[in-house]
């Protein structure tokens, strides 16, 4: 290793490219020239593992250019993990889950590729959300492909542009194709995973955590599991709201019986 091409002249010699055997130096070790399929002096660059460790640290544009160097580089640079890492590295995102519809998604890693998913609740308005997330209302409309604010009623979630990059630090993003917004984005869920479709216990908590909340609510309300589950579901998984609602219903019931 390193036995040939010691002088820089050889490295930058223009005839290397024209020559089918780019090792014109007769002093260079012939064994290396035979061993390495690419006839490069840099045999480490022929190992996919070594190459991966390097390419992983490139920006998407540099990665794309490296993909055009030779077959091996192209293969390594096209690996999903390498592309994902280039995509998320500048933002400190921990991981990006899911596969985009085309690998072109990875090319651009601006903050505009990321968005927060806001599950719409009753009373949410676009200006209200803009205030809540400190972004421009216009940006929300643009990101979600909304002609007017009335569009909010037909959707169950909106994508919110990311105002502070720190939100992405150590976060997990899910690549999703939003049918309303008609765009693919790396979606960040601030309050849970993408599974919380009905809003029912839609928090990023484990099955065990859900179980514990349910048990504690059941105990404080002194009711059976079905009732506790019902109240939790109407309060969107918030135990405090569930108990509040339950006591309200209870007092209403007592009033009825006394009346």
């Amino acid at each position, binding site marked *: *290793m*390193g036995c040939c091409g010691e002088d820089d002249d050889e*490295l930058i010699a223009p005839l290397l490219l024209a020559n089918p055997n780019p090792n014109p130096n007769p002093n260079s070790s012939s064994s290396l020239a035979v061993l390495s399929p*690419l006839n490069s*002096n840099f045999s480490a*660059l022929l190992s996919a593992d*070594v190459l991966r460790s390097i390419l992983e640290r*490139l920006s998407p544009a540099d990665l794309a250019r490296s993909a055009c160097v*030779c077959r091996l580089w192209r293969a390594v640079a096209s690996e999903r993990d390498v592309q994902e890492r280039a995509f998320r590295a500048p933002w400190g995102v921990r991981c990006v889950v899911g596969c985009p519809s085309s690998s*072109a998604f990875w090319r651009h890693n601006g903050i505009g590729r990321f968005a927060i998913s806001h599950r719409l609740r009753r009373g949410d308005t676009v200006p209200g959300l803009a205030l809540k997330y400190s972004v421009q209302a216009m940006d929300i409309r643009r990101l979600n492909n909304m002609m007017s604010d009335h569009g909010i009623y037909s959707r169950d979630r909106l994508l919110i542009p990311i105002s502070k990059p720190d939100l992405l630090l150590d976060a997990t993003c899910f690549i999703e194709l939003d049918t309303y917004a008609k765009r693919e984005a790396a979606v960040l869920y601030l309050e849970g995973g993408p599974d919380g479709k009905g809003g029912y216990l839609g928090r990023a908590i484990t099955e065990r955590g859900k179980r514990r909340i349910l048990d504690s609510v059941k105990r404080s309300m002194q009711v059976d599991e079905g009732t506790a589950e019902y109240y939790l579901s109407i309060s969107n998984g918030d135990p405090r709201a569930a108990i509040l609602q339950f006591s309200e219903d209870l007092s209403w019931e007592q009033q009825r019986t006394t009346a």
Partner: protein
Amino acid sequence: MATIITKEQQEKEKMVTLVSSDSEKFVVEQKVAEKSHVIKMVMNCCGIESPIPVRRVKGDILKSILEYCEKHSKGEAQEVMEKWDKEYMDKAEKDLVFFHDLMLASHFLHIQELVDLIAVTFAGMLKMKSPEEIRQKFNINNDLTKEQEEHIMTTFGWAFQPI
């Protein structure tokens, strides 16, 4: 508590001999050699009494690597280390062949910190370079077929505009 201190002292005294491919001998502390995952495994199973041959690494490379390991086993402040790392890389970067061998050896010996450091430096070399420049610099043969190149130009064409 006392046992820990004596253990550390013992470790300090323990020296291990590494032999490079050109039979150069290096005597280093065990904790320095332990920076390399591979050597650590060897020491764990074979002990440190007999010299450990590092057949695939030449003397000058091994010397440089041990220098790195020694510095990094001292546990100095992060700023000091970063500065030292930078100087170390600047020096290594000057000679591409040496740098390449260093990279290979760090992978071979599995010194993760050094692998990362070198990869970052290497990635820096590839920044804002056209494929042609990369091929020239590292003497890589272009083995892409005509169709593949055309395909690349359609899919990656965007990457070439800003240069």
